[in-house]
């Protein structure tokens, strides 16, 4: 029986890992401007587990894309490890990506169908500068990564991603992160396409991984129960703005913003009555 324990810690004094000031993204369709992310400020500390919670269309994914450097921000500045982030060239962007990695919602479309699983994992080793390692060493690393997520590398080698189940694919994504050891992991709804039972396994692995390599985890989700369970701090997002943020207990048990209150009241609960009349 292995057990990971991580008490909720106070991260306010930890060094800043990723910080944003007035980060904004507008989308223009003809004359209509959609403010997907509207002047948000945030400060994620090293080793912290942060959740960004919001409904569909609140701008969560746009924000995550900006954090990953996949979308340019319209306005504002993102600071990476205290310094303004510079991803102006392809080489600099690649350098940035060695520090930040992501797990996406849909495991089925996260992999290149033409690449074997070996290739997927070898790419990670190469990216970490292990290109000239002997083959045995590489195999050993891949086996270790797979066994970390309860997969057997011997059974996976020479297979294609589509031969795996959704849960297995999502675990393979985590094995990638294990090999890459990034400073920041951005998890965009990693469990929403997986049923409740496998969800516990995936969460367990993420938490173990965080303890092992001390990374910051940014969890993007609409599942408030889940966010409350795992995170140190929570940011609540509505229409591109953060309406509330703070420690998980504070935000969920004593919400201040009306939006947060409504969101929490809309979640079916076990010990409290779920009031259907407030829709």
């Amino acid at each position, binding site marked *: *029986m*292995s*057990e*990971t*324990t*991580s*008490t*909720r810690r106070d991260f306010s004094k930890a060094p800043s890992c990723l910080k944003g000031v007035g980060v904004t993204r507008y989308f223009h369709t003809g004359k209509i401007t959609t403010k997907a992310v509207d002047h948000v400020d945030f400060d994620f500390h090293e080793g912290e587990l942060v959740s960004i919670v919001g*409904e*569909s269309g609140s701008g969560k994914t746009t924000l995550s894309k900006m954090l990953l450097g996949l979308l340019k921000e319209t306005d504002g500045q993102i600071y990476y490890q205290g310094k303004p982030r510079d991803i102006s060239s392809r080489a600099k962007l690649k350098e940035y990506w060695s520090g930040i990695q992501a797990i996406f919602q849909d495991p089925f479309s996260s992999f290149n169908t033409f690449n074997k699983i070996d290739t997927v994992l070898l790419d990670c080793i190469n990216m970490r500068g292990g290109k000239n390692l002997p083959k045995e060493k590489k195999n050993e690393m891949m086996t270790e990564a797979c066994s970390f997520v*309860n997969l057997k590398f011997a059974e996976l080698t020479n297979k294609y991603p589509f031969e795996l189940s*959704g849960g297995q694919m999502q675990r393979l994504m985590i094995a990638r992160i294990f090999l890459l050891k990034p400073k920041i992991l951005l998890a965009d709804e990693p469990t929403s396409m*997986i*049923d*409740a*039972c*496998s*969800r*516990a*396994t995936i*969460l*367990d*692995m993420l*938490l*173990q991984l965080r303890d092992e390599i001390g990374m910051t985890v940014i969890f993007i989700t*609409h*599942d*408030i*129960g*889940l*966010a*409350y*369970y*795992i995170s140190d701090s929570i940011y609540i997002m509505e229409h591109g703005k953060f309406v509330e943020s703070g420690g*998980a*207990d504070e935000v*969920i*048990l004593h919400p201040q913003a009306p939006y947060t209150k*409504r*969101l*929490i009241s*809309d*979640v*079916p*609960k*076990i*010990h*409290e009555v*779920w009031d*259907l009349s407030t*829709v």
Partner: protein
Amino acid sequence: MSDVMLEVKNLTTKYVTRFHEDVYAVDHVSLKIERGKSLGIAGESGCGKSTLALSLMGYYFPPLHYMSGDIIIDGKNISGMDPDKVRRTVLGTEIAYIPQAAMNALNPTRKIRKFIEDVILAHDPKVSKKDIYELAQNRFAELGLPVEALDKHAVELSGGMKQRVVIAISTILRPKVLIADEPSSALDVTSQKMVIKMLRDMMDKGMIQAMIFITHELPLLYNVTDDIMVMYAGQIVERGSAKEMVFDPVHPYSRGLMNSILVPEEGTRSVKLTAIPGTPPNLKNPPAGCRFAERCRYAKPECRYNQMPIIDFAPGRTYRCGTSVEELRELYRKEDEMNAAEASSDTGAADGPVRLTKGV
């Protein structure tokens, strides 16, 4: 008119794969739902929840095949009927189905009113379009949906609205039994609540007589349905009232499921979230004994080869396990005590530790 709206006796259906292998996705399932009641079906992905829903409609097409058993809706046996006859006389009036991907069920080139015309004309070709439009308007108003939506295309509606419109369309003929297969899984919490409210309203107003609700989200089932049934590898492993199933599950698998509940409430953070190790068996050649034995922490050697019958142990409660209820409860009590002792011995756990247990 009997009081049992839906009765299923030993229903078995199978899938035939392209390599001519038989997969029994629904294996001797029996259930009963009374008028005005709702039943929730929970279980992992691939345990046969959706196949059971499809099988209950009596509308089979390859690769799904009917094997044996009876489906009796309000005293009328529909099993073994010709699929075309089922479509014309049973679907929509006796039993209706809301599919998992209801969001994508609407043809984007047609207006919503056209779908309603299709449904009604398939059952009675003589109704005039004006009558149908009036009926649809009344029904939409009754359900609190905007009447303008009838003249819109699917793309003009939001996800939650689309889902509610699909529900309104499938229940336009007032079916006796409604099967909702994960109707709210793709929606956010607010739209989910609206969908649930609508389903509850329909039950209260008597538009539907009974409902089967399928999802893997247990807090939702607890709040929506009267009874919960847990399925595992094509079989029913436990059934009881929602409250009993959440707070006092008996079967080790149900207990595992209930331990994976996450709700934003005080105390959630101090509870252990336990994952059930392993994966469900392959139904191409299911294990000879208990299907859960491989993953069960209480399994005895004989569990692996003894067939498990389903046993009634209290009014309205059944379970499928070789270990007696008393023995299981005793085991759970000891385990809870152990966990509590462990939790209190943890240092500095005052502000809610995050604790996960893997591979128990």
